[in-house]
């Protein structure tokens, strides 16, 4: 059992996802439960795997079909992606639970909830696969699963969603194709698709042009998927119009795992000693800096809660790219920590957004006046997560920023620190503006669609509350226990990536 964990983490939810339509045909309720159960099982297994990797102290390899790499497909679970997998599985399970009150709202269409859960589960599967795999082409396949699931979940959202989804489809396909081109160039130079093998064989490649072009393709391809600054066009609309309950997952982790993949390519496959690595780091750094400032400034302009969060994501993805651009241990540690912490922050914030929509149909921050009286738990979660986004201690956001700043100063890149500081302050402006509206705005009359009086004094259904509180708890736990995470990834990063 324990040595099958890497694949079981993916196969169990896969079984759930493909059987969900069949089960729902007889009982939609059980179809839903299947998916939620499968995702929770996957989460439990991912935690077991995390412990396992920690105990072994070296990467776990799993060979699909028993073919040893590079002939077959290999899963490699090391310190970094064990954390990623646990994160994705946790958010997947939480989001599945979170969605169930939203999907009850349409009882007419029997297939509706089945399809929704199936797609949601596939999104989780794709992300889990992307983080587990050690094969460049396999990553492409998983990326396509993620994208397709993303298109679906975005398209079934609000009225404007189909256009957003369609644009994402077009850009996303270009991105995926660029990624595929990049893999193609690398394949043409090395003749292999296995990442570890590719890294070894790339050292013998003398023709630098092909590596440069491959790198450019990969940056563009993964940049589109992670909404890195000049390639972010699809992101704000997609994140603000997506299906309310799935939005947390889309916004939270769909743009993080490509970032992780980028990290893999930059530090695992390409050798740090390559002559153009410095230039690549600079270019990524410029993109990151522009993204951070652009996202933060643009978020100031909007009053729609989701739009603010979406633009702030562009900035936060910039943080992650900045970590890669810094490129030393603390930079990478900061980036990885930020992937995890921002995933929980953004997921949590979108949970609050969805909860506000669920209870009061609130979309604009102007309507938030005095909502905290009616939804204290949601408001408290919002405050916690937003403070973490701003980067205030003792929440997780501060510590990822700490490592990024540490790395930047170690490299003497004071400019990056200035950008981090500026971005925190801009973030403070738009989040404290929300706080002001939430706590000090004028009360507006709204129809309560889940009146607490009728539900035993509960502010929201428990299935919404639990993920909300989990996200907040995770942020605090990650903040206070960040050195555990860093210690966990330290060995991997130092040995494998910066060797």
């Amino acid at each position, binding site marked *: 059992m324990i040595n099958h964990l890497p694949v079981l983490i993916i196969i169990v939810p896969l079984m759930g996802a493909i059987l969900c339509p069949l089960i729902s045909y007889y009982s939609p309720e059980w179809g839903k439960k299947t998916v939620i159960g499968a995702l929770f099982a996957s989460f439990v297994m991912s935690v077991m795997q995390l412990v396992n990797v920690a105990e072994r102290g070296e990467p776990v390899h799993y060979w699909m079909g028993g073919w040893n790499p590079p002939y077959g497909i290999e899963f490699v679970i090391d310190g970094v992606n064990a954390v990623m997998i646990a994160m994705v599985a946790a958010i997947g399970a939480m989001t599945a639970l979170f969605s169930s009150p939203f999907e009850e709202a349409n009882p007419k269409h029997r297939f509706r909830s089945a399809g929704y859960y199936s797609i949601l589960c596939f999104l989780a599967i794709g992300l889990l696969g992307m983080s587990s795999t050690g094969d460049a082409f396999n990553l492409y*396949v998983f990326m396509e699963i993620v994208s*397709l699931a993303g298109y679906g979940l975005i398209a079934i959202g609000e009225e404007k969603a*189909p*256009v957003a989804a*369609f644009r994402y489809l*077009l850009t996303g396909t270009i991105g995926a*194709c660029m990624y*595929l*081109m990049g893999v*193609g160039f690398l394949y043409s130079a090395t003749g292999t698709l296995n990442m570890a093998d590719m890294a070894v064989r790339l050292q013998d490649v003398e023709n630098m042009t092909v590596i440069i072009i491959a790198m450019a393709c990969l940056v563009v391809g993964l940049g589109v998927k992670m909404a890195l600054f000049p390639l972010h066009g699809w992101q704000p609309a997609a994140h603000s119009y997506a299906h309310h309950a799935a939005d947390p997952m889309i916004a939270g982790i769909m743009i993080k795992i490509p970032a992780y993949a980028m990290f893999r390519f930059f530090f695992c496959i390409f050798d740090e000693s390559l002559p153009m690595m410095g230039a690549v780091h600079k270019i990524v750094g410029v993109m990151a800096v522009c993204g951070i400032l652009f996202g933060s400034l643009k978020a100031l302009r909007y009053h729609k809660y989701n739009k603010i969060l979406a633009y702030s994501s562009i900035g936060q993805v910039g943080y992650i790219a900045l970590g890669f651009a810094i490129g030393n241990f603390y930079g990478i540690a900061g980036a990885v920590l930020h992937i995890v912490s921002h995933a929980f922050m953004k997921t949590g914030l979108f949970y609050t957004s969805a909860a506000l929509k669920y209870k009061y149909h609130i979309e604009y921050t102007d309507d938030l006046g005095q909502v905290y009286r009616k939804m204290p738990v949601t408001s408290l979660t919002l405050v916690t997560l937003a403070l973490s986004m701003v980067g205030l201690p003792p929440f997780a956001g501060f510590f990822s920023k700490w490592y990024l700043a540490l790395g930047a100063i170690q490299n003497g890149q004071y400019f990056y620190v200035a950008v981090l500081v500026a971005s925190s302050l801009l973030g403070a402006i738009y989040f404290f503006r929300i706080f002001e509206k939430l706590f000090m705005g004028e009360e507006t009359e709204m129809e309560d669609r889940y009146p607490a009086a009728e539900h035993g004094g509960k502010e929201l259904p428990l299935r919404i509350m639990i993920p909300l509180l989990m996200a907040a708890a995770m942020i605090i736990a990650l903040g206070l226990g960040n050195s555990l995470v860093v210690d966990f990834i330290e060995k991997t990063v130092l040995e494998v990536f910066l060797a």
Partner: protein
Amino acid sequence: MIDVLEIFLAEKGIYMLTFILMGLGIFGMIVCGNYMKKIICMNIMQVAIIFFFLTLGQKDGGTLPVLVHNLTSAEEYINPLPHALMLTAIVVSLGTTGVALALLMKIKEIYGTIEEEEITGKRWKK
């Protein structure tokens, strides 16, 4: 003359044509206002990429990668790996096209048009 052309094509020409095709696909996706055309251009781009991969596996004098009894040497078969990869990619592209069409029809229903300009120009009417 033809020899020179052949060598040029093998070293550069085919790749150039492939990239031109891909460039046209991407260009079409950006510049065409009609969503239907965008989808078709997307397919064109994907064909270009698939072809690019397939050319990587081509071998002079190689035959189809189906084992024939009297041929055993590796040089006599075309590299099967890109083919397998591209089978996957092609299926993915079909799936993407299907989803894109569904979205297209949904957009048509909501907005009454599938022209980029009209959709961005006017807000959705209730």
